[in-house]
């Protein structure tokens, strides 16, 4: 029986690269790790519900947003990292929920990211990659939904893959980010009622 978590995750003789795991359990979000923000009157709060994790909820003003991120402390590689997240949106319509490995949490101007894209302008879930000057959308063929799902983003030297429930559904080979990255989760409404995103798990690691 292997005695250590280290040995379960790292080959003998190798130095572990940066990794973190967040289980979104307990009374309060770990604000030593995460920064949060809302636009208008949203909330970022632990959920009192079965498998509820944390709830990012917008207010009831169009354009309202809720977001968590690492406040631009970026320890993950654009050419060798992965993010696994379990998430669930509450309502499909008018719900702009996205999960990123992003260089800058605050702006889409000259953005660099890999984005799990749930937006009303696409019937299906997309993978979007941005390199600071352009972007590439790759359709997963999987319709947007409001079920809990396991998402995995993997950034490699010349591609970015998105897996949904363990199956690779989209691969982008253009407009790949080149700058260091952090996890970012956001939800936004474009109507006058709240939209939300629940997260129960997030793991990011360099490969």
């Amino acid at each position, binding site marked *: 029986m292997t005695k250590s978590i280290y040995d379960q995750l790292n080959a003998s003789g190798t130095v572990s690269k940066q990794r973190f795991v967040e289980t979104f359990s307990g009374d309060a979000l770990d604000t030593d790790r995460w920064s949060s923000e809302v636009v208008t009157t949203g909330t970022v709060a632990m959920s009192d519900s*079965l498998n509820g994790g944390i709830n990012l909820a917008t207010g009831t003003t169009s354009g309202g947003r809720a977001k968590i991120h690492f406040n631009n402390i970026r320890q993950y590689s654009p050419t060798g990292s992965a993010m696994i997240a379990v998430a669930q949106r509450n309502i499909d319509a008018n719900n702009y929920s996205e999960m990123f490995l992003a260089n800058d949490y605050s702006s889409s101007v000259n953005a660099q990211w890999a984005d799990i894209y749930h937006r009303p302008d696409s019937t299906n879930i997309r993978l979007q990659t941005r390199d600071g000057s352009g972007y590439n959308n790759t359709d997963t063929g999987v319709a947007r939904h409001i079920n809990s799902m396991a998402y995995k983003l993997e950034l490699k030297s010349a591609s970015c893959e998105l897996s949904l429930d363990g199956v690779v559904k989209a691969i982008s080979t253009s407009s790949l980010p080149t700058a260091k990255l952090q996890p970012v989760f956001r939800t936004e409404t474009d109507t006058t009622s709240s939209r939300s995103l629940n997260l129960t798990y997030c793991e990011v690691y360099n490969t």
Partner: protein
Amino acid sequence: MAFPSVYEMTNPLTTVRKQHFWEYFSGATLNSRWTDHGASGPTYVMNDEVNGGVRLTSSGAGYAIMGFNNKRPFDVGQCTFIGTFRRNSDDQYATAGLRNNPVSSSNGSYMLMDTGASNIQLLNNNGSATTTVTTTPIHKNWTTVKIENDRAGTSIKLSLDGVLASNGTSTTNISSAVGQPVFATLYSSSAGTTTLDTNYCEVFNT
């Protein structure tokens, strides 16, 4: 290397992971995921001691209870609780497990060491209570408590240090409520100070 990710240690990526957390109780202060539900000045202090974890201290007629402030992502009747546990006081009522309400026995599933009784007990409740008395005497040693709540299989199994406790299975009054991990300590017969230590807690829905 056995696994590429922590996720895949317990779930394939083809399975959506249910809520699962673990806590090492290491560092300068107790993590803010935990909330004090006690009374009369309880304390929750990290132990400056090898394998010390965190120490809950109750005083007088009060009690020390820590939980998740009623943030309840777990299914009391369909989840597994693992916790380490060491009680230190001669007159003590100390518990570890799942509860819907940290200060109520209703809709809970937890292990009890009560100096008013001889043996370790498993208490569970869905509005009606079941008390299961094991054949294991209470003690003051570190012990690993595992409670496997399986409403679908109509059983709750208490294991101590990796072994299913003799007379440690309950089959009635299994809760369907949501819950949170709770550690609690107070006096059993006469008001006075009690302490309880833990250095690990893990809960996951099954």
